């Protein structure tokens, strides 16, 4: 394909601060939403409809043929979910987004949009168990394989890249050990090899980091967590940064060559920086159908309105809890980058100066039995499989979220048998610490009894 002087001069503006018309707290309330033109309703209405009337036949044909923007069928787009998609795009600084049924659906949509059977992923070994399941066990059935590497080991990451590798994938802070992804370094590895970096920013949200500014190309979220923030909804978001040069790479015919599924449309030719997200909607959302319901989008929007104030409180509460646990005799180790002893403390301070996460793990003395006693004696902390709720949460990963992983895989992900994961909520930190004290007393009794 002919490459023009202009295209070759494309500015890879990595590390550049993007333009935004407003600050995060303002965007979180306003971006993408306007008073409803039909009724004047100030809140974003829930457009609970499957389909939309066409004014006339030509208008209908124009909608189907991408001559007009608009809504046809809520699997493809919906006015309520569109506000959410635009809002997360604004918060992340992306060109566009797609709301999906879950975070898992967002990951699957990203992969399926740019990969075929025979494609290969290089992924950080510090991943959410659900993402690990998809990559390690499910996608190989469809011919897409993954090599998991320690994302801190840049040489290993480079060595894992093959001619058929099409994506590097990692979490901003790895679940659950809070391995901090060096986005600038990893994106350089990706771009040196003509492939994009997809980052799961579920734990951090745009409040703590905007991965596109650090070099990521695609961002996904489980909006179930901190974005919505109240543990009431399942949803995912996939955001396109719009900077990856799919043409120059030459590895993505899905975007740079005619697509038979839409009259030989070439997405890079017709949609420029929005090529990826356009194909994801026109193909992946159309064919796989993992769309988000408008009611779910409404709940997520409602939560996102207070993202800034909630995240500030999540982070400050977490700092108080981490400080308490780190000084407690019953705790062997706390894994949080706020602590100088954490491997990624300096990197976290540099990349995520406002904090790294309100989810972290610690190792309780006394192993599995002490961990069980601790969890059982907590009152405020809810024992369940989720994070990012306004309420504080606790779980034992080895027996729940990561139970399919063998010992070696667990160790690679930084998880031990006595590892406890906390998600710090918005309660008063004095009450949280009092609850943790009670749990630790119970754990000490078990540990003391065994000793």
């Amino acid at each position, binding site marked *: 394909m*002919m490459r*023009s*002087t*202009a*295209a070759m*001069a*494309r*500015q890879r*503006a990595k590390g*550049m*601060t*993007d*333009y*935004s*018309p*407003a600050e995060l707290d303002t*965007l979180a309330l*306003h*971006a*993408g*939403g*306007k008073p409803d033109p039909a009724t004047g309703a100030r809140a974003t209405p829930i457009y609970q409809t499957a389909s939309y009337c066409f004014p006339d036949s030509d208008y209908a*044909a*124009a909608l189907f*043929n*991408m*001559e*007009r*923007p*608009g809504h046809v069928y809520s699997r493809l*787009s919906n*006015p309520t*979910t*569109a506000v959410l*998609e*635009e*809002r997360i*795009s*604004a918060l992340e*600084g*992306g*060109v*566009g*987004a*797609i*709301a999906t049924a879950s975070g898992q659906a967002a990951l699957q949509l990203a992969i399926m949009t740019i990969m075929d059977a025979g494609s290969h992923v290089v992924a950080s070994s510090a991943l959410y168990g659900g993402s690990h399941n998809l990559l390690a066990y499910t996608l190989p059935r469809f011919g897409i394989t993954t090599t998991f590497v320690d994302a801190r080991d840049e040489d290993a990451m480079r060595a894992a890249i093959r001619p058929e590798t099409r994506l590097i994938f990692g979490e901003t802070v790895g679940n659950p050990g809070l391995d901090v992804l060096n986005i600038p370094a990893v994106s350089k590895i990706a771009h040196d090899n003509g492939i994009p970096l997809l980052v799961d920013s579920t734990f951090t949200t745009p409040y703590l980091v905007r991965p596109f500014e650090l070099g990521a190309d695609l961002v996904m979220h489980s909006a179930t967590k901190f974005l919505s923030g109240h543990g009431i909804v399942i949803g995912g978001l996939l955001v396109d*940064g*719009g*900077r990856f040069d799919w043409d120059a790479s030459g590895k993505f015919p899905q975007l740079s060559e*005619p697509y038979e599924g839409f*009259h*030989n449309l070439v997405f890079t*030719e*017709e*949609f*420029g*920086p*929005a090529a990826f*997200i356009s194909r994801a*909607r026109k193909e992946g959302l159309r064919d796989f159908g993992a769309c988000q319901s408008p009611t779910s989008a409404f709940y997520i929007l409602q939560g996102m309105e207070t993202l800034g104030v909630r995240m500030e409180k999540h982070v400050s509460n977490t700092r108080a809890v981490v400080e308490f646990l780190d000084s407690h005799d019953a705790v062997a180790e706390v894994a949080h980058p706020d602590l100088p002893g954490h491997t990624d403390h300096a990197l976290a301070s540099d990349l995520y100066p406002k904090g790294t996460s309100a989810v972290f793990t610690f190792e309780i003395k006394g192993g599995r039995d002490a961990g069980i006693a601790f969890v059982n004696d907590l009152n405020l902390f809810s024992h369940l499989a989720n994070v990012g709720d306004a309420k504080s949460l606790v779980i034992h990963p080895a027996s729940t979220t990561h139970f399919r992983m063998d010992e070696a895989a667990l160790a690679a992900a930084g998880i031990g048998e006595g590892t406890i994961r906390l998600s710090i909520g918005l309660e008063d930190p004095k009450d949280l610490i009092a609850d943790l004290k009670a749990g630790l007393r119970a754990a000490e009794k078990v540990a003391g009894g065994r000793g």
Partner: protein
Amino acid sequence: MELVSSGKDTYVYTNNKTVNPAKPSLVFIHGAGFDHSVWTLFARHFSRHDWNVIALDLPGHGRSDGPVLESIEVMASWTMELIDTLGLNSIALVGHSMGSLITLETASRLRDRVTHAVLIGSISPMPVSEPILDATANKPGAAHSMLTSFGFSKQNLMGGNPNPGMWMVSDSMRRYEDEAQSALDSDMRACNAYQRGLEAASEIAAPTLMLHGDADRLTPLRATKPLLDALSNARMDIIPGSGHSLMVEDPNHVLDQLKIHLL
């Protein structure tokens, strides 16, 4: 499609169709720092209605080879040569911003070969402020931010994109980043230097549509009167709530007006 025009590799978007001189033809001319892809929706529509659609990439923009052309007059000469290369006798011209100045100049020279003209976000003269020229020359990131910030109405800067899920602010930033800095700077200086717009307008007999946003902050609505007065066969349609980026801010209104004017 790719072709050689003026001795250079040139790209024009045709919706994957061969240009047939027997059909009516519509030539779309993009603005400063952009390329053919700003016209995708509209070109697809007229292509379905059996028009030749030619959304060109000016030299040094998008997929066309450089060098960038340094004046509106030279861009018009290049456009005329492209039209001849494609074997087109009569055409309709649609231009946005800088592209509207090229449309004026081209239409004034081609006279009755131009059946219709459409000027989107157009004023003449089209002065560019010193801070913007300084930024396009020396601080490209600042230039992209300034042009994006002023390129939309204040209301639309906060979103409400009619294209579901798309954030027009970052899309605009990426499009400026994709072009060579020298192209944007050269385009802005060409707009600033072009002084023949009103004279060219007075030479255009073809029915002309001016489309303008009432919240345009780059080419303000109040500055459109001299151009409208200079055109002998023109009407103005004002798009409420929109700024300078009409094809993004209100594409359905733009398409409706193009249909009224052209079909």
